[in-house]
């Protein structure tokens, strides 16, 4: 049967290319495998030729799949489930690409595309290692292709070209069916628009962050494949020179991708920050940390011949943990603990587990089988040598990664333990404690201290052994760094008292260490390298790392909550002080509200022309009158039949801090606007004041000197009026509006009686005579509830990342150049450059 308006050709072509890519990638891995295993050079060459044909067929197919899927999405062919599920006609063109990575299929496709790009560059540039490395890459491509084939009866993979009418979504919708139960021929005319992209992903970071992060994920396969090649061909040390620039590239891109994710989280999620130790974040951080560790051990090996075994292990584990992270974040097993883990829809848990095991078992098996044969240096490193401390640093990074992934894997442990417990419950599932972020921080702060100190001193050490004169160069940076660090702690008032004193001291030490590291590495650029930019990559990336560390430490420990609630808690003077005041503050429209160092007025709201996206204009005025600005956090309200709101924060950026706010709650928008104003009534204690639905008796007026969260000086005063409100319905309420006289100005704090739609304001107090403002609102008033924070020096986090990445890229270009030069003068430098040959 033909259905009206369907475009079936792209889907058929797409499916064809999926099958082609599956077969071609399998053929490419087999051919490449045989090209390595063949004895004769002739056979090797012919297998390699064949493998290249297969690989480029694969590349072509993957690009066609990508192109066809984009064509479907951008033409709004909603007969395809992927387009219908992830896009809509109102979606801005710039977000059409983001639709790709919203779904499982698209993001695996993206991964596959990057493998193709990297593989093609590899074939072009690295002739020597093509065979074994491309075997691994092609095999990974084969496994990725199985994710897309979509063979329903095997429950294997999920085809992105699935038609909506075959997906089951429409099955329960009788309107699409004719009398016989089949689909109506014109069913497509009733599907006018798609389901749209998740509003949280409608952010420019979501256009750029996933491709970069996936390039990071994908690129870890190259160092991994190099390591496997070394083990496989038993040329244990020879791969390291070619692998170093690739490892640097991978680390730089991967790091950029992670921090772009942090920037996205900061700008459009409501973590209240850029990092929350969320499992999804941890899952990408851990393989990156391992690849950083591997990078350092690789450099050690290149210079001294030590640490080859560790390098093998780290590069293997880095990729294995990319796969483990993929399993964690996409299988749905993390659902309980993460704000944004994917469910197991589309691609099954077992498929992801097999993907992991297909690499884990052979690679670690090969590693342990060959372990004894990997050359090593029996002689011990000098304690004054650079390689010794670099190695320690790498181990610390690795250990830190292992601790993070262990903590992240708690749901997995529960799952595994659950397998062994029968009906009688012997095992109670575990969960992270009260302050999960602190669980991480209290451990990682010590990692920060060690890494700060190691990066500060490491550059001043020499390979093999360091003489005393060289160490003397460290003296000046040490003195300057320590003094500067202590000054920042002291004058910057870095007092983090929410946890233990030991933790605060640890933050201080970490900060001093980070500042020391910054000063030491910056001055090393001049004293150690004499300003030679080419070789400065290491020092520059350490400057970046130190800056990042300083940014993290200051912005987290000095983060201030501006929206400490004063209106809600104000009424409960009797409450015991250990009650934590909340971070949510409600702003009633057009009422100036006291918020930390600011007065904030919720002045108006506006809406997006095409979407149910509302912007709330909040006018901030600093109390000292020096600053005023408007922030417009926004929220999707009742988006696409989904109840509730999805809020995006807004921030005001200064060079040294950000003011950051987001909406946490809104009144039901269907209610009418509040147009009522305050009516002022003169009264005194004992008087009765009437309103439309009852009356209020002024019971008492009292002044006091202490209010929680508001520091009052000797000249300031505060008064509270106690009102007993008798409504017509017979209910009796109490109201306590407050008037604060502070620095010669009066700040009335309203009290609201939502049940009666009443707002009281104490406007003036003169002994027992008062002026009372009464506002009656025909509807529930308009308000927004928000949280607001101040993040000092958050820019250091971004700046540090940029410098670090730039440094790694400089190293990469230097190492590539070095690689080219050494092939020219192979014989001369051979002895230094290929230490493994000497050792083994």
């Amino acid at each position: 049967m033909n259905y009206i308006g369907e475009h079936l050709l792209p889907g058929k072509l797409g499916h064809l290319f999926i099958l082609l890519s599956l077969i071609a990638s399998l053929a490419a891995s087999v051919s490449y495998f045989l090209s390595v295993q063949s004895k004769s050079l002739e056979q090797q060459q012919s297998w390699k030729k064949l493998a290249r044909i297969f690989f480029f067929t694969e590349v072509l197919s993957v690009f066609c799949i990508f192109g066809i899927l984009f064509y479907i999405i951008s033409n709004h062919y909603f007969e395809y489930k992927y387009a219908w599920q992830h896009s809509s006609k109102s979606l801005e063109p710039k977000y059409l690409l983001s639709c790709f990575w919203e779904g499982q299929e698209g993001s695996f496709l993206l991964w596959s595309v990057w493998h193709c790009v990297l593989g093609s560059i590899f074939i072009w540039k690295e002739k020597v290692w093509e065979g074994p490395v491309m075997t691994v890459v092609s095999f990974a491509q084969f496994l990725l292709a199985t994710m897309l084939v979509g063979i329903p009866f095997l429950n294997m993979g999920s085809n992105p070209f699935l038609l909506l009418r075959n997906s089951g979504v429409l099955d329960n919708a009788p309107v699409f069916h004719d009398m016989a139960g089949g689909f109506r021929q014109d069913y497509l005319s009733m599907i006018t628009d798609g389901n749209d992209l998740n509003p949280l992903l409608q952010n420019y970071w979501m256009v750029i962050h996933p491709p970069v992060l996936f390039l990071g994920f994908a690129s870890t396969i190259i160092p991994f494949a190099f390591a496997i090649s070394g083990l496989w061909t038993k040329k244990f040390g020879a791969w390291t020179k070619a692998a170093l620039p690739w490892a640097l590239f991978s680390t730089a891109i991967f790091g950029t991708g992670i921090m772009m994710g942090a920037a996205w989280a900061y700008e459009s999620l409501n973590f209240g920050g850029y990092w929350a130790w969320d499992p999804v974040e941890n899952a990408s951080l851990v393989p990156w940390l391992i690849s950083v560790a591997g990078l350092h051990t690789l450099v050690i090996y290149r210079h001294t011949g030590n640490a080859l075994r560790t390098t093998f292990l780290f590069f293997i584990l880095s990729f294995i943990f990319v796969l483990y992270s993929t399993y964690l974040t996409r299988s749905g097993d993390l659902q309980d603990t993460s704000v944004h883990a994917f469910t197991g829809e589309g691609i099954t848990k077992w498929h992801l587990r097999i993907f992991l095991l297909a690499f884990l078992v052979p690679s670690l098996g090969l590693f342990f089988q060959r372990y004894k044969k990997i050359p090593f240096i029996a002689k011990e490193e000098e304690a004054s040598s650079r390689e010794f401390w670099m190695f320690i640093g790498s181990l610390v990074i690795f250990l830190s990664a292992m601790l993070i992934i262990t903590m992240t894997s708690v749901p997995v442990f529960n799952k595994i333990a659950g397998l062994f417990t029968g009906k009688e419950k012997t095992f109670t599932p575990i969960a992270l404690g009260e302050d999960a972020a602190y669980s991480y921080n209290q451990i990682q702060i010590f990692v920060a201290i060690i890494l700060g100190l190691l990066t500060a001193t490491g550059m001043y050490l020499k390979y093999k052994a360091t003489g005393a004169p060289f160490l003397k160069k460290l003296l000046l940076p040490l003195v300057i760094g320590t003094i500067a660090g202590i000054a920042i702690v002291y004058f910057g008032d870095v007092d983090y008292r929410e946890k233990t004193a030991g933790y605060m001291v640890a933050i201080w030490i970490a900060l001093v260490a980070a500042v020391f590291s910054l000063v030491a590495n910056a001055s090393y650029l001049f004293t150690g390298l004499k300003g030679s930019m080419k070789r400065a990559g290491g020092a520059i990336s350490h400057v970046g790392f130190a800056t990042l560390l300083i940014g993290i430490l200051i912005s987290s420990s000095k983060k201030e909550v501006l929206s400490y609630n004063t209106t809600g808690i104000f009424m409960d003077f009797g409450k015991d002080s250990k009650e934590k005041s909340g971070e949510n503050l409600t702003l009633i429209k057009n009422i100036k509200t006291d918020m930390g160092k600011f007065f904030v007025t919720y002045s108006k709201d506006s809406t997006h022309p095409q979407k149910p996206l509302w912007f709330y204009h909040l006018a901030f005025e600093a109390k000292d009158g020096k600053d005023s600005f408007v922030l417009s956090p926004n929220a999707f309200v009742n988006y696409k039949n989904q109840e509730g709101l999805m809020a995006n924060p807004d921030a005001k950026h200064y060079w040294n801090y950000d003011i950051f706010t987001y909406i946490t709650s809104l009144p039901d928008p269907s209610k009418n606007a509040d147009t009522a104003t305050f009516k002022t009534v003169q009264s005194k204690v004992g008087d009765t004041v009437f309103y439309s639905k009852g009356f209020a008796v002024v019971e008492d007026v009292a002044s006091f000197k202490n209010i929680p969260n508001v520091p009052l000086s000797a000249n300031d005063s505060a008064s509270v009026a106690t009102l007993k409100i008798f409504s017509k319905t017979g209910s009796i309420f109490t109201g306590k509006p407050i008037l604060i006289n502070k620095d010669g100005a009066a700040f009335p704090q309203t009290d609201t009686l939502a049940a009666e739609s009443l707002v009281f304001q104490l406007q003036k107090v003169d002994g027992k005579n008062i002026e009372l403002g009464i506002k009656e609102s025909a509807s529930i008033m308009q308000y927004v509830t928000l949280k607001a924070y101040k993040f000092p020096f958050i820019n250091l986090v971004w700046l540090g990342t940029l410098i670090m990445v730039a440094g790694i890229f400089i190293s990469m270009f230097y190492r590539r150049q070095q690689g080219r030069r050494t092939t020219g003068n192979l014989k001369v430098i051979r002895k230094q450059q290929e230490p493994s040959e000497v050792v083994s």
Partner: protein
Amino acid sequence: MKKIHIALLILVISGIVAMSFFIKDLTTQETFTSAKERGEKYVVVKVKLDKATPIEYDAVKNPNQTVFYAMDAEGLRQKVVYNNAKITDMERSEGLDLNGYMRDGYFECNKIQTKCPSKYKDDMKAAEKNLPSATTTTQY
């Protein structure tokens, strides 16, 4: 013993110390009844929201308190006080993980993990609602 072995030993020990700090912070998943037995201990209780009782949240009165009722795995209904703004998609949730303390007569929590809303599966369900059929189901 080589220096590196000493360093390794120190690292392993500090790793174990770090893990023990972490394990000390770990808590367990309980039901309301077993949470009560644990007294003042911080626990996690997996519950389902009692959708029959409305969620009490008045942002104007106190934006930092949400009160609702929930049933745990054993079906016990309990009052829950959440010291924060109401989670916006709470009504749609299939399950809630309450993190907090069992108090006298109510469960006080400072962290809630909601299961499913805005994740893909539910997006599909919500999306199905957007199909024209949602308004014409009476045809059946």
